[in-house]
């Protein structure tokens, strides 16, 4: 079986074939990796590469999975290698307008920027109150504020688009 897998945005080709009972032949970008893999349960994979032991924990998150190795997360996406749609979409993600959405229901308490303002990556665009805490909603990229779709004092639902940065 052949997979195209992106890890934190970097693409790998992974080929996996059953060798013999419990053993797998695995190639990463064409290079063979000597490993012994056992699925402990649906969340945990025990991997022995050479004689190094790794516990890999899987966490579902949206359309990808996060895999944890030694307490460090890796965002992993599995793609159909016969289509380049996925890859193109991923590449596009870094350009173009970005939507700022509400991760949970809350109330807009303050707008920090106005449409047309320049914005740095990580700079706050507006302040949302949820779970009794005020939280700055930050721009994921450098650019300018294209639209603000909410007003101060407005209640928002999870998933609502709050602003667009381009």
């Amino acid at each position: 079986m052949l997979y195209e897998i992106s890890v934190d945005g970097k693409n790998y080709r992974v080929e996996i074939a059953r060798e013999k009972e419990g053993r797998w032949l695995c190639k990463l970008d064409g290079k063979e990796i000597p490993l012994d893999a056992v699925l402990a349960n649906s969340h945990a994979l025990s991997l022995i590469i050479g004689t190094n032991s790794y516990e890999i924990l899987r966490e579902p998150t949206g359309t990808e999975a996060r895999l944890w190795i030694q307490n460090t997360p890796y965002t992993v996406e599995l793609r159909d290698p016969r289509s380049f749609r996925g890859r193109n979409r991923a590449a596009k993600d870094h350009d173009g307008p970005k939507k700022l959405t509400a991760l949970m229901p809350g109330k807009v308490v303050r707008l920090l920027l106005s449409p047309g303002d320049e914005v740095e990556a990580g700079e706050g665009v507006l302040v949302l109150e949820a779970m009794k805490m005020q939280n700055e909603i930050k721009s994921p990229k450098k650019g300018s504020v294209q639209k603000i779709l909410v007003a101060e004092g407005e209640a928002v639902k999870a998933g609502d688009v709050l602003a667009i940065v381009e």
Partner: protein
Amino acid sequence: MFKKILIANRGEIAVRVIRACREMGIAPVAVYSEADRAALHIRKADEAYAIGPASAAESYLNIGKIIDAARRSGAEAIHPGYGFLSENPAFSAACTEAGIKFIGPSPASMRMMGSKTSARQHMERAGVPFVPGTSRGVASLREAEEVAAGIGYPVMLKAAAGGGGKGMRLVDASTELKGALDAARSEALRAFGDDEVYIEKAIANPRHIEMQILADEYGNTLYLGERECSIQRRHQKVVEECPSPIVDADMRRRMGEVAVRAAQAAAYANAGTIEFLVDAHKNFYFLEMNTRLQVEHPVTELVTGLDLVHWQIRIAAGEKLAIRQDELRLRGHAIECRVYAEDPENNYFPSPGTIASLIEPSGPGIRLDSGIYEGWTVPMEYDPLLAKLVGYGAHREEATARLFRALEEYFVGGIKTNLGLFRRILSDPDFIAAKVDTAFLDRLLKSPAPQKPGHAEIAAVAAGLFAVLNPDSSMNGTNGTRQDADGGRSAQNKGAAAWKRAARLDALQ
């Protein structure tokens, strides 16, 4: 002893108190809001009473509904936990009126300690040290100049009616005093309708150290040692330890005796905590008294060997303290991490949602007080505290090592938590050297943990293996969840479907 106790709380503290009840042969009664029907504390209780909608004001903060549930269940006493109604004298009074024992201090003690000025007056009379300054507003700039010169710069101006940082100004030198005083006064007037401003010595990067006390209803009061609570985010404690690395036996005795005097001046009964600010010269100043069980009580329990919740219940049932101050021995060191559903890399943004997978640590020197389970959806309506992980050891180094080891074992999948932040804190040289103050966390770098070379490649291979070995499993680790739909679920299923589709297509090759 009581036969039945109602716990007027939720989350890990409700589970903690239910456990104490079970250990004492007392039937525990839970209450729950609509958002908490699937919560762990209901599963662990003998009885459960619905007390209204998700909003705390209409459920956990509603005195009438809680008293009503207690009456219907026949509970003889109510444990308030912390937060919610635990420091509300009206609730304590309502319990008494309903003939139900409130497990905590009297309304009078609570009221005395609840008001800043009343507490300060009583505490000053009892000889409790305060931050040097005026206890009421300064009348003029000249008076302010004299006071500030007397206590020495830097000083802090504070609104008498104040709170929440409004009407506060830090003044580094006399030349800045006039402008700051004018600004503080006008801000105080606008915020509170009262321009009274007083002056206190400013303490730079203070430590926050608190003393646990335990008092029975016959006037016997013990101090149980201090807790170091200097590691805070947004003025909320996240790491606490016992003992404090800077407190020696003599300082502990002096702080403890002050705490006992303060409690006795308030005719205090049951468990309570005196909070102190400590400056760089180890001078300590009364900050406030918390008239309830603290979140961080486990570190004191581990080091003293006493169960504070058992003792709260015993004291409320009329028992006398069975130990004397000179019999009490502190042994070892304990450190607690407050595990929150939040994203430390995104300004501690709360992260409610479904706990898709959960691996909990255990083993030597590890105590976990948790209120969650795999498959549970953390509601968005309440404080996002999930659990408290505590490491205990013969000394601070061993406690830290065990706690760090447990943090490496701990895994909460599906929502963001601050577990990674704790791993960073515990491996920080300043923490290891016990150089912590209330600004520690802000100093700690916010950069993500460095990824190890070669591990991205392992993640790629592992992703392929998950797809091959387990193609039909849902990405969501639990089969069952609550009936009501939650935001993240459909997205997760879409993700799972995509993985399955890709895996199946490949299997056809």
